[in-house]
């Protein structure tokens, strides 16, 4: 901490003490160092040490634009949670959003402006110098030589860049999002003549069919979809929705499906058209006005015609069509993992299907103009790269995107940058693009900056700095304005704003007028800041089939060599396109499907693997026409036999210590050919070669089958409706006799009485959880939330291989069936400490480190723990985690929070030293916090007031926390639900966690 860069304790206190403007000083964005020290005698009103302040802002980890609340303690943000007012995420957040903190505090952030010197090494320079260098370069270049690449920045920054470029006489920026949804957009244009993406209302649909759209992972707005899906599909009062997933690979989203259909790769469109054919010819629903436009097309796609080409029986297609129209339904297409060359045809066919079924305007809503990628297009990036190579670009700016990694490797953006006279990166990290720039001007982290974002029509999400910048970074908007000012002349005249914040406010003043709000701007602005933005309903837009729909071509049949396997490069649900790879939480988050961490793998069907003599962990060389990479094999039954799959996101050659050199870059396998819809294909014909080497996989899973133990239980809807509540499981067939039960109760009471020292809270609660498995999708946001809330260290791949990951909650994923013609079913179950009434861990601890709290928790006194580990041996759920190394010690090589990552540690939770057992205690610090609040206010705690971290973030609201002793509490009622069961309840551990069985909505012939 001796060096001057970064935020050290001294500087932090200085900032804290600079109480000139109170919160403004703490949260303000002025980059000027404060040189006055004022003792903290008169604290600012809203900064009380020990009390958190919450600021609303917007998550910018992906273009979904969820609202966040940042929890700020003593001037630094320690957690982000969803903003309940945001219509996008309604208070929930995914793992990537939660891990945005690790972007802010990333130890590999660029700590100040850097310029590449003559030697090719980067050297620190001053901001003034940097701005002068840009101005100089710009003055030496004509407008047509200046190009700007941004990610999706829909909102003020995009306007600023465009205006700035126009002032320079340059072309508009190239917007590039690797997950561009060009196919969906193309299909909207072709089928409806509308250049926008609709919003899909999964909450209103009782029947969902997805043609490869991973809508719970990365597709458009996953948190919103998860909420809607849980609402529409989750079991309630005897009924539920049904979900069919159509994709050659069962993705995490597909794992939630009631039925998984694996068509031949690339033939999804035929299935959609076949279904539409049945709907139209059998007149299952009232005919839509424009149906005549597609009649000819549909005529050629009778189920019998497409059955062979899709590999799906005609009867199945007919059944799907009937099911599809029987209830409010929605069909979705266009996931990145299903983005093959014909993806636009699939998307168009699905649009047609939605149209003929009457879903347009009901569950598929145009007008919202969902903006997951802006007008992004890989084609444009491609032509820019060509221009760069031909010397057609003199000055290049890259902001908010990393095309040197996140594009098919053949694009060679980095190589093309060498041919550019002068390139400027605004990256916050040393990513592959920044490494090739001449000048690197690190932007503020989204949590440090003023900005806004428009995730859809009518949603204006604000970002405000929630704390002082950690490093000597500067907001890119301010840099552009400074350059404009320095350039002087007409350019300077076009920008009246002093700072980017002013520019932003000018925009918001216009917005206020636009929205018809006539209050003083300050009131409007303050309210927007408090709420995290302004939310208006999107105007609905009626659409009709466009004439161009007749151009819809049926997908060309793929003619791959016989022995070739189709490679699917699918998005990693944690790392996204690779931008999450430098966050240790996301690296260590087990992939929801494979439970792999920190690596890239090749998914291969067990039968295909057996036929080729491949075993799990064998390192395979995967070759496509574009390139070759190596990765270990992972045997996955959720694939077609002629398909292999690999996740995107790893294989960085830069991007900091957590990302660099890890796994393989799957973009290297993808062709740079621009598809008809302007994107690139995520499918490729591939061949496999066994390298003869072997690797022990860094996965967190032991066995993938339940061995009939009834851990994750399920029941069919039909059975429930007939009054059966599901499988009875367990080791002992005989029930516990009544007198034994009574004795056990007495023991329990005596135990409780023993623990009621001082009786400090009168009638004590019994804290408990209920987890609805019919809602849980396995997305694993809870895992990251737990990491964030409870200061859980990440341990790295080598320790994961040794089973030493520390996350207190894990998502267990089990497979059922998948053999002998049985359909494959995946079940997920969040497993956290069950807070047993008769906890096996407690009596075996020789020093009382494990003990029962009076309110029914299994406490763990870290300071008392000697580390015999008997408690964990005796825990049937295996939810106790031992500190094998000193992850909390900065002097130890195992230190998990290198400066300034340790800033994200929650001050309410202790960090644990080596040799100590740790575990989930239902976020006891949150329980005590709310209890104290209630006590101070002199009132009773209300049900639902305390939220555990996992529950708080769960996008599908599958976790409910509360007091089991309060008969009116939600958790009490759920614990008595007909679907309720305890995992391994036969062991008489009396868990505080009730699981509600997953409900499978099977069709008659399946069930």
């Amino acid at each position: 901490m001796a060096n001057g860069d970064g935020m050290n304790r001294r500087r932090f206190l200085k900032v804290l003490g600079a109480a000139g403007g109170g919160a403004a000083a703490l949260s303000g964005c002025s980059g000027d160092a404060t040189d006055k020290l004022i003792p903290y005698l008169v604290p600012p009103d809203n900064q009380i040490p020990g009390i958190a302040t919450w600021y609303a802002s917007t998550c910018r980890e992906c273009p979904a634009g969820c609202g966040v609340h940042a929890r700020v303690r003593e001037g630094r943000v320690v957690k982000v949670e969803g903003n309940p007012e945001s219509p996008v995420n309604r208070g929930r957040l995914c793992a990537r959003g939660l891990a945005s903190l690790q972007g802010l505090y990333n130890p590999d952030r660029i700590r100040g402006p850097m310029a590449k010197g003559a030697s090719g090494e980067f050297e620190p320079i001053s901001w003034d110098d940097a701005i002068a260098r840009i101005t100089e370069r710009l003055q030496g270049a004509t407008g047509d030589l200046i190009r700007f690449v941004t990610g999706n920045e829909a909102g003020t920054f995009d306007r600023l860049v465009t205006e700035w470029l126009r002032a320079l006489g340059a072309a508009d920026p190239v917007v590039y999002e690797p997950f561009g949804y060009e196919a969906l957009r193309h299909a909207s244009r072709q089928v409806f003549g509308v250049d926008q993406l609709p919003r899909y209302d999964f909450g209103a649909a009782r029947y969902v069919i997805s043609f490869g759209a991973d809508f719970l992972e990365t597709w458009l707005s996953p948190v919103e979809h998860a909420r809607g899906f849980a609402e529409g599909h989750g079991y309630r009062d005897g009924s539920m929705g049904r979900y069919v997933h159509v994709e050659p690979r069962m993705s995490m989203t597909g794992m939630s499906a009631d039925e998984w259909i694996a068509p031949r790769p690339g033939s999804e469109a035929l299935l959609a058209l076949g279904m539409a054919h049945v709907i139209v010819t059998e007149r299952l629903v009232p005919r839509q006005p424009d149906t005549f436009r597609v009649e000819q097309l549909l005529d050629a796609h009778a189920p019998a015609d497409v059955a062979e080409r899709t590999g799906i029986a005609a009867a199945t297609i007919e059944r799907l069509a009937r099911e599809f129209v029987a209830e409010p339904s929605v069909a979705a297409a266009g996931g990145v993992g299903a983005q093959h060359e014909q993806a636009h045809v699939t998307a168009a066919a699905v649009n047609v299907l939605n149209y003929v079924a009457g879903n347009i305007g009901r569950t598929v809503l145009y007008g919202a103009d969902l903006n997951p990628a802006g007008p992004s297009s890989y084609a444009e990036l491609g032509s820019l790269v060509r221009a760069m190579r031909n010397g057609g670009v003199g000055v290049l700016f890259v902001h908010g995107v990393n095309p040197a990694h996140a594009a098919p490797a053949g694009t060679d953006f980095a190589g093309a940058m060498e041919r550019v006279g002068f390139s400027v990166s605004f990256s916050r990290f040393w990513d592959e693009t920044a490494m090739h720039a001449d000048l690197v001007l690190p932007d503020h982290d989204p949590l440090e900056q003023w900005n806004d974002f428009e995730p859809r029509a009518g949603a204006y999400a604000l970002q405000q700095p929630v704390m002082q910048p950690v490093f000597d970074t500067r907001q890119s908007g301010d840099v552009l304005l400074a350059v404009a000012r320095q350039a002087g002349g007409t350019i300077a005249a076009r920008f009246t704003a002093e700072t980017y914040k002013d520019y932003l406010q000018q925009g918001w003043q216009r917005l206020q007028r636009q929205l018809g709000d006539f209050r003083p701007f300050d009131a409007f602005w303050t309210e927007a800041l408090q709420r995290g933005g302004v939310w208006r309903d999107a105007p609905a837009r009626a659409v009709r089939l466009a004439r161009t729909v007749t151009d819809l071509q049926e997908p060309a049949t793929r003619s791959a060599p016989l022995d070739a396997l189709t490679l699917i490069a699918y998005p990693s649900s944690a790392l996204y396109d690779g931008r999450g790879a430098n966050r240790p939480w996301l690296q260590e988050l087990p992939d929801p499907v494979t439970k792999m961490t920190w690596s890239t793998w090749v998914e291969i069907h067990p039968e295909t693997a057996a036929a080729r003599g491949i075993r799990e962990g064998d390192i395979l060389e995967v070759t496509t026409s574009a390139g070759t990479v190596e990765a270990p094999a992972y045997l996955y039954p959720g694939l077609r036999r002629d398909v292999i799959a690999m996740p995107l996101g790893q294989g960085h050659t830069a991007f900091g210590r957590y990302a660099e050199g890890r796994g393989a870059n799957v973009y290297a396998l993808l062709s740079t050919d621009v598809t008809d819809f302007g994107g690139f294909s995520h499918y490729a014909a591939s061949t496999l070669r066994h390298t003869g080497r072997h690797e022990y996989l860094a996965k967190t899973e032991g066995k993938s089958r339940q061995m009939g133990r009834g851990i994750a239980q399920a029941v069919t809807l039909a059975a429930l409706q007939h009054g059966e509540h599901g499988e009875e499981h367990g080791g002992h067939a005989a029930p516990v006799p009544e007198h034994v039960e009574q004795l056990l109760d007495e023991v329990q009471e005596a135990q409780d009485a023993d623990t009621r020292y001082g009786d400090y809270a009168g009638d004590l609660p019994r804290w408990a959880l209920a987890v609805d498995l019919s809602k849980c999708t396995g997305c694993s946001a809870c895992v990251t939330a737990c990491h964030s809330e409870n200061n859980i260290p990440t341990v790295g791949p080598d320790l994961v291989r040794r089973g030493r990951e520390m996350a207190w909650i894990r998502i267990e994923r089990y497979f059922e069936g998948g053999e002998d013609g049985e359909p494959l079913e995946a079940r997920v179950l969040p497993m956290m400490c069950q807070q047993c009434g008769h906890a096996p861990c407690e009596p075996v601890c020789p020093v009382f480190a494990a003990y029962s709290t009076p309110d029914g928790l299994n406490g763990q006194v870290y300071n008392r723990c000697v580390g015999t580990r008997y408690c964990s041996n005796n825990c049937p759920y295996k939810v106790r985690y031992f500190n094998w190394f000193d992850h909390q010690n900065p002097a130890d090589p195992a230190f998990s929070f290198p400066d300034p990552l340790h800033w994200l540690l929650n001050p309410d939770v202790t960090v644990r030293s080596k040799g100590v057992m740790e575990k989930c205690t239902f976020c006891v610090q949150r329980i005590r916090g709310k209890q104290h609040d209630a006590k101070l206010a002199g009132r009773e705690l209300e049900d639902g007031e305390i939220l555990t971290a996992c529950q708080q973030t769960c996008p599908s609201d599958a976790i409910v926390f509360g007091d089991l002793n309060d008969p009116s509490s939600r958790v009490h009622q759920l614990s008595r639900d007909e679907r309720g069961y305890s995992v391994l309840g036969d062991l008489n551990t009396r868990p505080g966690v009730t699981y509600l069985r997953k409900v499978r909505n099977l069709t008659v012939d399946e069930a």
Partner: protein
Amino acid sequence: MATIAEPQRTAPQQPTYHEITRDVVATLGRPSRTYFVLLAVVLVVLALGAFALLWQIRWGLGVAGYTPPVLWGVYITTFVFWVGIAHSGTLISAILYLFRSAWRTSVYRTAEVMTVFAVLTAGLFPLIHVGRIWYAYWLFPYPNQRQLWVNFKSPLLWDVFAVSTYLTVSTLFLIVGLVPDVAAVREKATGWRRKLYEVTSLGWRGTDQQWRHYIRAYLYLAALATPLVLSVHSVVSWDFAMSIVPGWHATIFAPYFVAGAIYSGVAMVVTLLVPLRKVFKVERYITVDHFENLSKLLLLTGLIVGYAYAVEYFIAWYSGNPFEQASFYNRAFGEYWWATWTMIICNGFLPLLLFFRKVRRSIPALFVLSLFVNLGMWFERFVIIVVSLSFEYEPYAMGHYTPTWVEWSILAGSFAWFFLWFLLFAKNFPMVSITEVKEIIPMPRKARPGT
């Protein structure tokens, strides 16, 4: 009085009192070069073990191979192994004493010494294995200002008492048994050793009164030690039996462990005696008959252990408990099948060879067999501990444990630690009881005419 071993076959000529004292005291003579080489090897291995332990304390238990859910591994395995070894000593010295088995006299000292040092070794392992060794003293119920107390429900605490009691009693027993012998050696010693013997012989002069008191005291101590033979290893077995881990939670554990402990202990006595009698040239006192008796004990306990294995499998099947069944199926056919079959073959089948008298009386065969039993008994504990833990209730949380160099070094170091004490003791104290051997040979009488 009886002869040294009955029926007397190989030593037709009874030694005289003088010869006994001479022969035994001769073992304490100047050590050979081999002795120093052995000592050096032991010290090097011990240093390696100590280094591994310090390494582990410095960086954390993670340097060992623990792989959750296997949170006990080589250390606890080796702990139980050494506690088990310790059991035959007390059996031979105390129980056989009470039963007046005369043949014990020439072997019991070795067994007792082995017991004390084995407990001394075993006692290290709970410390080596805890996460925070610097707080291991918290396991003792000592008065403290923080009003913290220990949990008497925990079998681990019972262990603390069982092992410390056992160490105390067996040490006392050894020291008391040594007194007349040390006094005998004292007369012949010079220099610092004489001082040592003067102290350890506790002023023994061999008066009638002293003998009377001595015999009483020894008898009482034997009576006191006897229940410990059963209780200590029962308590150790409860570390496992009191849990809910499939493969641990079984009522058979206490007798099963006690039999196993005696079994392994006798095997270790054989392993130690074979080279010892050769090096110390006391074949006259430790005869093939002794080995035959030991091997009968080995056969008996081996059969009990084999029976216990069978019963475990039978109960796993008969209980109808699928977790138990799966656990035992996994033992035999899972990832650790080799460990299980090593255990079953070494402990269950090889000792059946002892039904043949030829094997029982062949010292090389017995020596090799005893090594196999030692190996098998180590693996028995490994199988019970590691294999059960690796295959518990939650399929998702199952795992596979492989030890690292740290554990192997500490395991080797524990043998070095044991042999260090053993070697030092063997050269400084009589390893064959002078007094008791004398007791069982016929009183020397004046020669009668005609004999």
